[in-house]
């Protein structure tokens, strides 16, 4: 589990360095006249110090995290990755195909991914969900969904 802490602390350290440099360029100013980067510079320095603390603690003998990170072993990677890709595709296609078509496709894929249901159930559930949310959010709550190329 120390490897998780070591990796994550290095990531935060790099991020803090980036923010500190960017803040410095923006202008830290002085305590008498704080500049635009004053607060972010201070926060990033503290973030960097805490990252170093976590990083060096992993080298101390017998030192363990108060709560061990959960870890990735046995994680259903494919399922999470699939949902993530589907979500990104949804955002890409939403302005092109419009709310109704894109949402129907999304719900079909999401209901289908977890199996255990007949195809007609998947299609019917997706259809009903899409229409119900369209009427609730678009017609009742006046949300403006993209109509896409087909005007749907």
């Amino acid at each position, binding site marked *: 589990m120390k490897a998780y802490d070591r990796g994550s602390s290095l990531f935060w350290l790099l991020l803090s360095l980036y923010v500190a440099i960017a803040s410095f360029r923006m202008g830290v100013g002085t*305590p008498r006249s*704080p500049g635009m980067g*004053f607060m972010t510079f201070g926060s990033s320095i503290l973030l960097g110090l805490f990252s170093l603390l976590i990083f060096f603690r992993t080298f101390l003998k017998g030192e363990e995290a108060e709560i061990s990170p959960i870890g990735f072993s046995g994680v259903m990677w494919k399922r999470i990755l699939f949902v993530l890709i589907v979500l990104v595709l949804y955002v890409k296609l939403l302005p092109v195909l419009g709310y109704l078509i894109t949402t129907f496709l999304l719900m079909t894929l999401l209901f289908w991914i977890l199996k255990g249901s007949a195809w007609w159930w998947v299609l019917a559930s997706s259809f009903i*969900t899409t229409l119900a949310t369209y009427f609730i959010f678009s017609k009742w*709550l006046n*949300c403006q969904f993209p109509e896409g190329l087909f005007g749907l």
Partner: protein
Amino acid sequence: MGFFDNIILGFQVILDPNNLLFCFIGVLIGTLVGVLPGIGPLGAIALLLPATLKSTPTSSIIMLTGVFYGAMYGGSTTSILVNIPGEAASVVTCMDGYQMARQGRAGPALAIAAWGSFIAGTLSVVGLMLVGIPLANAALSFGPPEYFALMCSGLIIVAYLAQGSIVKAMMMALLGLLLGSVGLDIVTGLPKFTFGIDELTDGIGVGPIAMGLFGIAEIFTNLEQSLEGGKIFQAKIDHLWPSLRDWAQAKWAIARGTIIGFFLGILPGGGALLSSFVSYAVEKKVAKNPERFGKGAIEGVAGPESANNAATGGSLIPLLSLGIPATPTMALLFSMLVIHGVQPGPLFIKDHPDIFWGLIASMYLGNALLIILNLPLVGMWVQVLKIPYRILFPLILLFCLIGSYSINNSTVDIYVMILFGVVGYLMRKFGYEGAPLILAFVLGPILEQALRQSLLISKGSFTIFVTRPISAVSLAIGGLLLLSTVLPYTRKRRGEYDKLKED
């Protein structure tokens, strides 16, 4: 206007059909998210935040607060019947609630949880009325140093109460401050960390971040596991009215839970979760037979359930009187009010009596509605518990997508939400918590403004934070908490070092 005139004003506001409907929707959704494991009140409020944009601030705060205290009621049902906490503040209810259900006392367990919640919830609203107004008056004399110190100590307390490492929690609070600084600078008006993206000039929205960290990340975490729910307790649920013996055993637990919950709720970073744990510990300590705890002691249900409901009223006090959200949930309510052009703070009650007193009245009414929803209708929630997660998760995901899009009708917000969903998922994997991040994110701009104003007042001297009594005391509390975590650690290391030297 006198006290009773204000109460009447509050009931006039809540009896408006629109507000009444929002109150009902709020407590209904609150109970639903409380019952359903996986999505808590924080995620639900983040989800509903965009839906409130088209309504009035009064209706919005009535609904979102209803979600918050409604979830406290609903959470106990799942804890008692399934032994899985519906939301975090009901974790401790599992210990004795489920044991009572196994002994055929599910009805009395549910009943005492609901009645305890009702009594504590109602009394905490009385406390909110009595403490909120004097505190707001006192807060009129607070300047930027006091606000800065109070917010800093609040962030330290949230980090201190984090489940994992305090260092990691502090890091998340700092990350929240950095994310909160994205957008236009408060003094110069120049863009900061916007990377040339126009949508970021207004800053990152709290909705997409909260939905990502608490909604999408939760879904990703659940997708790792088997998607079948826990086993629901099958026996018939009856005796939904506690017996006289139950009342006699639980009455002081309810009273103590109410007091503990209310006062811990006021503290920055306190909230419902801490209150329920402290209440359970106190009940065990004062019990004549502490060995009954964990085996179905009714006080172990009554105390924590009363405490987590009392905390809801308490946690509204710093938000409405000082303008400082003390918990992540309050941070979302703060954002909602600001989006509606209402500034919480010392002048809030004076400037917006309709919102404040309407909210108070709605909480009286909401608690009464929740008793009806959670006792006679408990069978309905048992059916809800049977809905498999494979059906729920696509719906939650879709609501998150619609919610984040509808804030600005922008797909950039959806990308932000997905990004923070991945970040939130990885944070859980690496042992980092989202709660300090979201609180610091909302407090960030106010904190920065208070810091810069304080330094301008003191002509660059940081002693301004220790020469003013309120800010000095606040910072001292934060500092002592940090010391209390550092000292045992250094003592332990020194002990190991001495041992090594002796060897």
